[in-house]
């Protein structure tokens, strides 16, 4: 009897091992892509200094970096040469108070003007050319098409049903709101669970990546309709972090520090352990296809806070707030 039981157990173990090995063999291998750093010009002008760079955007010719400290959008060439700044601190037209997001389409620059509770538009010359007020502090503003903008908001921490995504037309009319924030009796824990990143896709679609606790990327149509969920390959692993204070102790599963979308691939930077317990920006990017499969991993020479990707180039902000440009070598 005991011998039979051992035999059955052995068969189960062998079957499971063979099954796991077969599944692993089915998955394509993960490439290791290298990067070569492109030298950025010195940019000695005071205006070129990035005090608190918190968002980046690209168009055909330029790189746009939001500097929340200087209340300006700083415009660089694609080679990293500083060209000019748009905006200054204030509440009037063309003035900004804690800009936190930028997007550019059709020669128009849209800036999330957080503490002025509005989205401002600027033309190519940097002159204000419209915008609209919103009933919340906008976090990011993404031009989905020439006609519609996706504006994100951080939940206030109050125990009410709050939406985090808002689609407006360029005239400021609300078209759609969605993605309800998770709320519990612990607003600090909720703040982490509700931290999202948006990657605009093609044709007005967009993707929402949660920074912790959730490994599925949400795919929305430009109308706001949820198209699907993309479960990301578990080889892009969660990074756990215990929150302190006994009694409120909860475990966060860090998933993504920053993310970008380019030509059918997500670039997701994994948070990295900092001094044992903490999680900070990492220097590894996972390249994930639109089915969620990990296709490559990129090791950067330094941790990066924010980045955008275009073709084979990664434009990033490092620990010191400096602009770094990397060429990807496959």
């Amino acid at each position, binding site marked *: 009897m005991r011998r039979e039981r051992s035999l059955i157990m052995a068969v189960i173990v062998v079957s499971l091992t063979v099954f796991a090995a077969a599944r692993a063999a089915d998955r394509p291998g993960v490439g290791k892509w290298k990067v070569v750093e492109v030298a950025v010009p010195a940019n000695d002008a005071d205006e070129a200094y990035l005090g608190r760079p918190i968002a980046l955007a690209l168009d055909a010719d330029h790189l746009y970096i939001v500097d929340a400290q200087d209340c300006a959008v700083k415009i660089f060439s694609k080679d990293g040469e500083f060209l000019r700044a748009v905006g200054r601190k204030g509440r009037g037209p063309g003035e900004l108070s*804690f800009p936190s997001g930028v997007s550019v389409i059709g020669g128009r620059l849209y800036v999330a003007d957080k*503490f002025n509770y509005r989205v401002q538009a600027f033309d190519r010359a940097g002159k204000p050319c419209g915008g609209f007020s919103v009933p919340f502090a906008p976090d990011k503003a993404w031009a989905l098409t020439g006609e519609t903008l996706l504006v994100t908001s951080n939940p*206030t*921490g109050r125990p009410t049903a709050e939406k985090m995504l808002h689609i407006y037309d360029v005239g400021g009319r609300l078209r759609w709101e969605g993605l309800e924030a998770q709320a519990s009796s612990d607003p*600090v824990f909720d703040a982490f669970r509700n931290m999202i990143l948006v990657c605009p896709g093609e044709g007005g679609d967009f993707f929402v990546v949660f920074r912790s606790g959730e490994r599925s990327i949400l795919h929305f149509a430009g109308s706001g309709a949820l198209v699907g969920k993309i479960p990301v390959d578990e080889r892009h692993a969660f990074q756990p972090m215990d929150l*302190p*204070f006994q009694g409120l102790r909860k475990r966060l599963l860090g998933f993504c520090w920053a993310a970008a979308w380019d030509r059918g691939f997500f670039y997701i930077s994994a948070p990295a352990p900092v001094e*044992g317990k*903490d*999680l900070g920006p990492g220097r590894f990017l996972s390249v994930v296809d639109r089915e969620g499969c990990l296709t490559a991993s990129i090791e950067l020479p330094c941790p990066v806070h924010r980045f955008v990707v275009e073709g084979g180039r990664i434009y990033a902000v490092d620990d010191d707030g400096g602009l770094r440009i990397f060429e990807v070598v496959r």
Partner: protein
Amino acid sequence: MKKLAVFTLAVLVLVSAALFFPTSLAAHDVNECFKNHQDCRENALNLDAPWYKVMIILTVCDFALGKCALAL
């Protein structure tokens, strides 16, 4: 030792916030308290700092909201 240092720092931050947080000095309007609380959270969430630090600042924001709302 490290634990003690982190704990001491956290206590110092909380005490400093309790003593010096500017909104609590004059504000008794609860709506103003909530607005300051939201600004405090937005600043924390946009710090792009390691999460422990963000968590401590968010906690300070919540303490400051309580202090402001109670007009302490």
